[in-house]
């Protein structure tokens, strides 16, 4: 392109000159749309901060999160060297919070990888193929939907032992059915579209149709749903941690921190409240991000 055309013009062009150009242009326009939503940007900002904090934990944390100082237990906020005070074993809460961010991200990433992908697979195949496959897959989905998360986690703990991985597995196994339902509903709608008929008339088989034609259309709603579910997933992990089924002590998982601080809530409220606020903030951030993404990705709302 000519030198006089600025980068912005190149990105916003109505006549892309290559595949790469077209894709980059589409992404940029989506970004512009997202950027105009202040609340969504705040959500994004908080999450970026979370990732940075987790990555830079060794640098940012003022103390070692596992070091105990029984002489300085339950120190209040703003006490010497401990911005958020210390917990029942004298460990610095701020440092534990920072390292706990890593665990939160780990949980979020794992569940986000497993649940929606499984749901997409099951839902699209079920919706496209129909018939017995559909019935069987949907009944399997119903079975998993019927499990209360905590009961399943208990079962896993009993079978495999407590630990963060098993907690994540338990959460994923109960989180995927709604995605399967969404994917199936979208597939049913898309399946009867003319553009699907058209590609069938070119001799396309079900695999190509599902992966190249149906998945791109389902993915937007799944992404939105995942971000909106994140809040619930973090809370579920926290709940499991709270019950002692997830991250095991001395791991600084936020839910476990709340559990430990529960006994002191009346006199030393910050021990439980500070990690609680962290969970609240991250959940809120995911909600805001999810809302913003939906406005950008929802095909009905625009392009």
């Amino acid at each position, binding site marked *: 392109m000519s030198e006089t055309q600025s980068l912005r013009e190149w990105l916003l062009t*109505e*006549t*892309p*000159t*290559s*595949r790469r*150009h*077209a894709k980059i242009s*589409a992404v940029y326009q989506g970004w512009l749309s997202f950027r105009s939503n202040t609340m969504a940007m705040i959500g994004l900002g908080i999450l970026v901060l979370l990732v940075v904090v987790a990555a830079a934990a060794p640098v940012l944390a003022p103390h070692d999160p596992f070091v105990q100082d029984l002489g300085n237990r339950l120190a209040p906020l703003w006490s010497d060297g401990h911005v958020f005070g210390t917990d029942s074993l004298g460990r610095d809460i701020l440092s534990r919070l920072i390292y706990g961010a890593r665990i939160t991200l780990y949980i979020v990433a794992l569940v986000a990888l497993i649940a929606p992908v499984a749901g997409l697979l099951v839902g699209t195949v079920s919706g496209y193929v129909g018939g017995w496959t559909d019935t069987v897959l949907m009944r399997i989905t119903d079975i998993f939907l019927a499990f209360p998360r905590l009961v399943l986690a208990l079962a896993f703990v009993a079978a495999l032992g407590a630990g963060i991985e098993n907690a994540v597995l338990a959460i994923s196994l109960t989180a995927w059915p709604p995605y399967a339902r969404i994917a199936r509903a979208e597939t049913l709608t898309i399946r009867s*579209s*003319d*553009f699907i*008929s*058209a*590609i*069938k*008339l*070119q*001799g*396309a088989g079900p695999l*190509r149709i599902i992966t*190249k*034609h149906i998945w*791109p*259309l389902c993915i937007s709603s799944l992404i939105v749903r995942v971000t909106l579910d994140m809040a619930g997933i973090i809370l579920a992990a926290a709940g499991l941690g709270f019950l002692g089924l997830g991250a095991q002590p001395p791991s600084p998982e936020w839910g476990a921190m709340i559990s430990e601080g529960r006994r002191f809530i009346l006199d030393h409220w910050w021990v439980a409240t500070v990690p609680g606020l962290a969970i609240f903030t991250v959940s809120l951030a995911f909600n805001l991000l999810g809302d913003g993404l939906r406005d950008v990705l929802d*095909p009905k709302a625009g*392009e």
Partner: protein
Amino acid sequence: MNKLNVHDLNVWFGKHRDRVDAVKGASFDVAQGESFGLVGESGSGKSTILRAITGLAPDWSGAMALDGNPIPKARPKAFFKTVQMVFQDPYASLHPRHSVDQVLGETLHLHGFKDIDARVVKLLDDVGLGQKFRFRYPHQLSGGQRQRVAIARALAPEPELLLLDEPTSALDVSVQAEILNLLSDLRRDRGLTYLMVSHDLSVVGHMCDRLAVMKDGEIVEILDVASLRAMKSTHPYSKQLLEASL
């Protein structure tokens, strides 16, 4: 030998009590190089016949033959190299997330062509779209432009029989004229055979050589366009339709 023979075609949807017979005992022939129209109001079954021919309507009985060979229940890939379809709604017949290049490229790939780039360029030229539309997405195209892309997609496998399902009814009058001219030119230049469905008698009168009038799933009359213009239709329903269109 006729390009397409349809004999005693019945198409139905649903089973037993819920069964709806969309097409009942339809019979007609389309000669090589001819342009044949199927006219009727909504619910007459005309689009359903096209779907039955392409295999998109699974429950049918009767006989259909292409170039004298009976059309099998499972359409082989070779069938789609000969028979292609252009759909009615240009806003629904293109995948919203695929660019024009992807749509044409995928079609060419599925039919086993190797020189995809060159063919995409030529197809876009043949339908009157320039190269600047190649990487656009459907939402960046007008209705007429989308329909041209749909026509390009149908032409990609170099078919001989083109099924047109109300190709211009969703378009503005001025755009309709362009698309109809394009279709006429393509047919003349490539010796294509057309089976065109429309509710608009004047479009059919302009584009077709012969036509069948349908009502409630049945063909009530087959006549040639000259008779249509001279208002020499025999069936009362055809007369009714003619009068309403003038």
